[in-house]
């Protein structure tokens, strides 16, 4: 028997203001936070939580910086990464004031390659992430909403994507989808990385379909489609956004690897992977800068995105307390 039922519900009188949640009763506190969350606006609250995550803010700052570099960098940097100067230096020049990241075998400026490469690398990561998000949410929602054999068929397709080592497929697809094209790489990466999102969305559907608030919505006669879009999808969005940041990070790395193998972006364009493509031979000569700087650009960008993902995970999880 409950000693303290809700004061307003039973006495009918006004309740004195409820104090903050007690650590001893987290479940109750969660409910309180939920209420606060509604009144503050979900995104406002998430942003407030996100701001408290120091590394995530650093990551976001760096990521914004990278995007700005991708947009404006090529205009500012004085060298053309594709321009091969008349006199070539075997193995390239080490970093100097004129060439802060050194030059490659053909005398091309590595700093210009890194700055220009940001454009394609960030674009491939970002757009393929959006494609994966749209396809994944769509497939996951269909599977979770219809259930039954639709769900079964779609989930076996997802299982297949998980079983086939994706890099195998990407290498072949890159060869046959239209070689060297940025758009074909974006499409391939996007269409190969949605299954993880579909799985997340479907799992949210399965657990939320049985949850109390969906039951409640159904009980008062809310239409099924409305339940899907108003009640279930917004609640699944947190893990999906986090997964999308991971997809973006890993697709930037994938682009680099595929281009490094000469299966990716054609050599007349600049990406971080292309900048690394011939670096292995230079390493044998001891010319580290050629491989080091483009790789660091990838690593730091990916780390920044991972930090943002971590911050989002905490900010968007309704169970995280303020």
């Amino acid at each position, binding site marked *: 028997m409950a000693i303290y039922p809700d004061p307003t519900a039973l006495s009918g009188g006004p309740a004195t203001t409820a104090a903050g949640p007690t650590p001893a009763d987290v479940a109750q506190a969660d409910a309180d936070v939920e209420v606060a969350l509604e009144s503050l606006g979900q995104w406002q609250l998430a942003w407030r939580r996100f701001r408290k995550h120091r590394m995530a803010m650093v990551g976001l700052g760096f990521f914004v910086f990278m995007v700005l570099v991708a947009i404006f960098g090529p205009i500012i940097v004085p060298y053309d990464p594709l321009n091969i100067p008349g006199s070539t230096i075997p193995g390239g020049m080490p970093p100097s004031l004129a060439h802060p990241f050194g030059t490659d075998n053909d005398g091309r400026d590595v700093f210009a390659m890194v700055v220009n490469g940001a454009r394609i690398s960030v674009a491939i990561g970002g757009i393929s992430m959006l494609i994966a998000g749209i396809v994944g949410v769509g497939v996951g929602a269909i599977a979770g909403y219809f259930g039954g054999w639709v769900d079964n068929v779609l989930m*076996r397709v997802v299982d297949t994507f998980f079983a086939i080592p994706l*890099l195998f497929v990407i290498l072949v697809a890159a060869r046959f989808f239209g070689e060297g094209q940025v758009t074909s790489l974006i499409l391939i990466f996007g269409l190969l990385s949605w299954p993880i999102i579909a799985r997340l969305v479907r799992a949210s559907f399965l657990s939320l379909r049985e949850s109390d608030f969906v039951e409640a919505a159904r009980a008062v006669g809310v239409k099924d489609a409305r339940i899907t879009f108003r009640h279930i999808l917004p609640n699944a969005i947190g893990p999906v956004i986090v997964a999308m940041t991971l997809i973006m990070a890993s697709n930037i790395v994938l682009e680099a690897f595929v281009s490094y193998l000469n299966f990716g972006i054609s050599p007349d364009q600049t990406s971080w992977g292309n900048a690394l493509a011939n670096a292995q031979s230079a390493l044998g000569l001891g010319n580290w800068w050629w491989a080091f700087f483009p790789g660091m650009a990838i690593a730091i960008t990916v780390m920044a995105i991972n930090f943002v993902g971590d911050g989002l995970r905490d900010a968007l999880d309704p169970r995280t307390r303020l």
Partner: protein
Amino acid sequence: MTQYIVRRVIQAIPVLFLISVVSFVLMMQAPGGPAAQFNQNPHISPAQINKWLADWCLVRQPTVMDTVREYLGWLGVWNCTGGSFLSAHGLPNFLPAFLGGGTNGILHGDFGYSIETGQPVLQMILARLPATLILMGTAFVLWATIAILAGVLAAVKRYSFFDQSVTFVSYVFYSLPTFWLGLILIFIFGVTLRWFPVQGIVNVRNTPAPFATSAYWAAFAANPLPYLYDIGAHLVLPVVTLIAVSIAGDSRFVRSAMLDSLHQDYVRTARAKGISERQVIVRHAFRNAMLPILTNLALEIAFLFSGAIVTETVFSWPGMGRLYYDGVNARDYFLLMGILLIGSVLVVVMNLVADIAYAIADPRIRYD
């Protein structure tokens, strides 16, 4: 438990089917179709070409029904020469040959011939298997051990210096591109310090025959120590490259699984019994954290295969990954189809094994 395993096996069947379709489509993508590829292959005699065309029901201008028949023949379910689902012995064609089944198709080990070399695809893959197994086996054992140890210790000593170091190192390594890490390792430990070899699996100057040939194994068997040492030295950099990034991600997974487990009510019960903290952690917290960790490790086996392509390419390791890379370069469709198929099926099988291991480890499933 039987029910659970049967359900898992049944779920794996459509996945295997889809994998076979993907592989088949890949093979059919060859310009002019597989039939044209056979014709262009200088390594195969016309008699062999005709045998393959007949064995796989391949026709030069296939209709839709022809394609279905080609698929079934390629799979080995359809007996192309006899034109039925039954073998020459009158039994279902998909059965193994020694049980009276047919001999054609991938179910009977017939993956076709490499366009590049003219060798049977299966033979080429098997020749590369030892190198890949050595690399992946070593990597998997070290990977699982280090990730679990680091994750468990970090969880038990939460917020300690060790925990924060593990978190920091994981963050850094988790963000590194695998192949780039390989390049940097080659530069530091191979080129600059000259500690470890950076190419291949054995030092060809010190071995009487190429790796994995019978002459090599004979010399190996006669005096294994220097050969083991040789392989070991070649293994260091590829293995580190292959596992560093995965360990970074998985130690964090293990840590959170372990933290989850440590906060369960039954761990508090165990503490209330007055048993030692070591027993609480090992018998109670870890035993339960093992379940999600096991699933995660199984899922990452596919990841390891992809990682093998990266590592084998960077380090010229003579395994299946390198073979695949060479196959893409040479547009060797039969070879690609074969590796894709075998790799994917291996992943499905490993996942099944992990599911069964899970069922054995978790009594809630064991007795259902």
